[in-house]
């Protein structure tokens, strides 16, 4: 059973008096524990699509099922609950909470969203800190660590709730190429270790090749699908 099923989804925006069609009838399926990338130039609809899959926005038309849930049926609170239980986010600007330490940033979703007991939180955060190699920096604040380290913390925060799906919108855009490659490698390692589906958007051609499945977007349309190993559609 596919984790994400999109059927003919459209997304329209109104920018001032101008109507913008960001997505124009996209249909695709994403299987569990896959490493998927959406690529395309600026304005192709990558971020819009990720926002829809992440239940941060709703399609204007079409059906979008994530983890067997029709996201159109979710209200405000239910959306938040759904995101907290099923989805992890990695942001381009890392978006760590500046007043929390590395440890507390990773712990935040367990404490404030899932409200897990302290021993369980300690176990999960310690595991993730080790997995992303940030144990020694656990007591530092975000402004005391590098960009690459921040993104590692963001990866750990996204994974700590054991989500089925992690969405990363341009996760390497603010990193140098070496660090960007390391972050993608980390994400792949995490995907193998935790069997989590990773969907990320990028326009960086150097890291595109790291995806197992690649969707090309152009002007809000799906221009092609490539699976590693030569399978190509579109």
């Amino acid at each position, binding site marked *: 059973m596919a984790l994400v099923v999109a059927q003919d989804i459209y997304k329209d925006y109104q920018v001032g008096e101008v109507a913008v069609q960001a997505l124009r009838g996209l249909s695709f399926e994403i299987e569990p524990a896959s490493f998927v990338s959406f690529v395309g130039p600026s304005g192709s609809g990558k971020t819009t699509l990720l926002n829809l899959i992440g239940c941060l926005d709703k399609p204007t038309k079409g059906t979008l099922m994530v983890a067997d849930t029709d996201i159109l049926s979710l209200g405000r609170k239910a959306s938040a609950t759904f995101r907290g239980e099923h989805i992890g986010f990695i942001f381009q600007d890392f978006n760590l909470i500046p007043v929390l330490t590395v440890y507390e940033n990773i712990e935040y*979703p367990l404490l404030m969203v899932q409200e897990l007991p302290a021993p369980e939180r300690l176990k999960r955060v310690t595991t993730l800190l080790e997995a992303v190699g940030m144990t020694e920096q656990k007591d530092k604040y975000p402004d005391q660590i590098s960009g690459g380290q921040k993104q590692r913390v963001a990866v750990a925060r996204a994974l700590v709730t054991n989500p089925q799906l992690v969405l990363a919108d341009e996760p390497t855009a603010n990193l140098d190429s070496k660090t960007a490659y390391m972050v993608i490698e980390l994400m792949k390692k995490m995907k193998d270790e935790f069997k989590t589906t990773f969907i990320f958007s990028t326009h960086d051609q150097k890291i595109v090749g790291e995806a197992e499945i690649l969707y090309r977007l152009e002007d809000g349309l799906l221009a092609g699908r490539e699976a590693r190993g030569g399978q190509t559609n579109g």
Partner: protein
Amino acid sequence: MARLFRIAVRNLRRYKRRTLLTASLVAIGVLFVLVFIAASGSFKNMIIAQITDSMLGHIQVHKKGYVASIENLPLTLNMNQDQMKKVEKAIQGTPGIEAYSPRVKFGGMFSTFAETTNIRLNGVDPDKEMKTVPLLQSRILQGGKWMQKGELLIPQLLARGMGVKVGDTVVIIATNKDGSVNGKQLRVSGILESATGPGGRDGYLHIDDAIEILRMEEPEVSEVAIRLKDFGRLHDVYKGLTAALSNEMNKQGTLLFEVHTWEGLSPFFNVARMIDVMTFFIKLMLIAIVLVSIMNVMIMAVYERIREIGTIAAIGTQPHRILSMFIVEGFCLALFGAAIGTVAGLLVVLILRSVKVTFDFGMQTGLVLMPTLHVMDVVAVALIVIVVAVLGSLQPAFKASRMEPIKALRHV
């Protein structure tokens, strides 16, 4: 909850200057309110104590209609022995009464043989009067501690105007209720400091002398002044005494007696009420200061942290949790300001007490202001600040909780 407080405190520390400025504003407001409450309360209580403990007593009982005609000191509205016994029985049956003093009040002529003027007099039992209005003794400026039979205490202004000294012999002449005039020679045993309020310029003589001058066949009483064990129970005792006397009717079927607290007898009660109204408005100003400053800070906090709000909302934080995060922040800021203001207020009150500020009120000079703060005043002011701060945080916190994560994440 502990984590919410920790995050709130860290966010406040993040903008140190703004936090300190706002907390200072709140603290200054709290400081002024506490010092005003302490000083005005002290002034009010001091004057009330002066009035009740040196003249009026806490409660007075009269025959019905006496207070309305009190300027005339009507002898026809005195209580007879039977009526006085009823009043004494009611007093003894009402808990919370420490002492009482029957008084015969009358107006008369005061003559030094060379000059004559009018005077208002209270005939009192010295022991009972001393127990009921203990500060009366402190108003004796010259002469002995208290008067005996055949002696008279006269007000300062009268003594000055008539050139009378302690030890002089004077004559008191009065008309009794039957219209016959009588006089008696008395020795001036002391000069009384004039006081503000009703009875503040009256003379005092022994009740037996008053009875003799007024040629009463049996002792009569114009009023009974009552002192309570606990002034805080004034209204309870008043209700109890009123109830105890409510069955006593005159021939016309109306109430025989009337009971008044000092509030119904002294014009200072209106000043006391004005002080309470001023305190209320000062508290309103504090509310305005706290509301505006906390609301302003929280609006800024929300505006500056829109992307953070977007992030925590995106990762699944429920709106009510975001709401509580900002409310707790406003609460912590108010708590900080209230704590500083309370400490500063207590320090200023302590300093004022050690400096011993003096003031004059009416004829009384050199009254020492001793500001006092009650725990309930401090708690009430702190509670006002905190509750208003939470209310002031509500709107920005609600705005934060209602933000669409996608729009918040796009905010630059």
